[in-house]
């Protein structure tokens, strides 16, 4: 029995030191710290934006349309209807993050079980691969076009379209990690011990696959944020008058000659959000890389 307990105790300590090592590496990477702070700040602002925003997003002021940034009372100016740009950017960023999280949640809920099944059960692999091929054949914009034609354009449908388009990526990384983990001794030991397939998947494989899932999610969120902006810009996503960074840019395009700044700010915010996620995702992947500080 002692022989059995000793390795188990060791695995426990190994996982604790591994988490500590990952956190230490993240803390020592200035880019990781900066991007994390930016994301934290964006998250807090997005959560509190209904209370933080200086104006209501629908409050028009036709006496003051196209006020440039720096105008008293309107830090970032006003739009074609005299609405406060800062307030709309705050609420728009909130919508962007909502779509990002909703889309990635959709892709994980469907993609993770399918990836586990494809990697673990040989018989399912071929069927799930065909399903993945099928999903890939409909690029996200085409999927969104189809969904908008059938169900109408909305924030929810945009998030679903983006989420479905991200499923293949999730299946791919989870499948390959499951294949790797399945060949390791501790899984074989659990199987010999009489554990059911479901138990092995839930208790041994899924917990060890979380790091690849986490990295996949951090690159999928910025992609979803960009996707939402594109769809809303085209009129296939969030519908006016609800604030969205994409629709703000679409309006700005019509009035670009009169108010060029309106075409710049929402784009900078979208890019900032996506960049922070991408930088943090890179740092996280490096920190989780067992090969250490190679890159």
């Amino acid at each position, binding site marked *: 029995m002692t022989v059995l307990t000793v390795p188990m105790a060791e695995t426990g300590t190994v996982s604790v030191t591994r988490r500590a090592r990952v956190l230490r590496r993240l803390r020592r990477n200035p880019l990781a710290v900066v991007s994390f702070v930016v994301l934290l700040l964006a998250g807090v602002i997005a959560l509190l934006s209904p209370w933080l925003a200086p104006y209501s997003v629908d409050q028009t002021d036709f006496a003051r349309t196209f006020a440039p940034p720096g105008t008293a009372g309107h830090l970032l100016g006003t739009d074609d209807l005299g609405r406060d740009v800062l307030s709309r950017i705050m609420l728009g960023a909130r919508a962007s993050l909502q779509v990002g999280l909703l889309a990635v949640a959709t892709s994980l809920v469907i993609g993770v079980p399918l990836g586990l099944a494809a990697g673990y059960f040989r018989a399912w692999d071929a069927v799930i691969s065909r399903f993945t091929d099928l999903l890939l054949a409909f690029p996200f914009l085409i999927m969104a076009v189809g969904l908008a034609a059938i169900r109408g354009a909305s924030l929810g449908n945009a998030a679903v379209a983006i989420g479905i388009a991200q499923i293949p990526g999730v299946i791919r990384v989870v499948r390959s990690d499951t294949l790797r983990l399945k060949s390791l001794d501790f899984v074989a030991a659990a199987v010999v011990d009489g554990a059911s397939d479901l138990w092995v998947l839930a208790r041994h494989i899924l917990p060890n696959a979380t790091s690849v899932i986490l990295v996949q999610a951090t690159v999928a969120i910025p992609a979803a944020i960009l996707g939402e902006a594109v769809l809303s810009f085209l009129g296939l996503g969030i519908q006016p008058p609800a604030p969205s960074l994409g629709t703000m840019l679409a309006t700005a395009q019509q009035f670009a000659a009169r108010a060029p700044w309106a075409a710049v700010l929402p784009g900078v915010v*979208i890019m900032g959000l996506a960049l922070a996620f991408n930088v943090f995702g890179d740092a996280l992947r490096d920190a989780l890389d067992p090969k250490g500080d190679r890159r």
Partner: protein
Amino acid sequence: MARYLLTRAWQSAVTLLLSTIVVFVGVRALPGDPALALAGEDRSPEALAAIRQHYGLDQPLPVQFAQYVERMAQGDFGVSIRTGTPVSSMLTTALPVTVELSVLAILIAAALGVGAGVLAAVRRGRPAEWLANGLALIGLSVPHFWLGLLAILYLSVATGLFPASGFVPILEDPVDNLHHIVLPAVILGTGLAAIIMRQTRSAMLDSLSSDYVRTAKAKGLRPRAVITRHALRNSLIVVVTVVGLQLGGLISGAVVTEQIFGLPGFGKMTIDAVFQRDYPVIQAVVLLTAAAYIVINLLVDLLYSVIDPRIRVTGEPA
């Protein structure tokens, strides 16, 4: 090799059939009577009955599906509700624009991406690498339709260097055609370039630390020859892989880019169709995109086995 080709072709055929079923079902999930949608202005009972009969809408579903596949295979996508012209003739004018835009964008992306990726790998830990990495991260994070917007605002409208919108067919005036399409192609290509750059850099770092490169260096080959002749060979695979994987993104990107620059391509046709509820056009667009995606990916996989003989043995990209 033949076995691999057959398996891949068979898989593609299955996917193509499945996607046709998805579109077929999707069209039937559209709100309202499809005959009403197809009828457009003339909604008399006789006209509706004629449409039902022509499109077999009075037949059982499996028969409808068989007829549907037959019509699609013959290139009969119906008639646009909005313009009354056959969808197939709309496609023949729109597709060349999109194909030209995409091919040009891929070429620009490959040149930029491979160049920056090699530079970043060779100049490891120096300012050149940081610059290339930073630009790639920004390229991944920037909304490209916004870049396009800014380009129109600051390059076309302000300086008049490029036309802000419009298109001239390449057969009419090749120079003017290029003038209209180069800016959209650069904008569309930058996102792809960022992905190619990151993959190239990573592949180059791997091969630069490999034994065969060390051997090449040890036998006294000049560094430039080591890089171009040995390490860089893999980057062709990288470009093909990225283009294959990012094809969906490229198609989506082309749709948006065309919309911004007012190019009369596939994408603009798609977006216009959604807003005008031009269902025959939407259906054709969705089905053709899926078919194009499947066929191009099959070709990419076949191209792999030509470029990298190892794949013929394992059946999977190395």
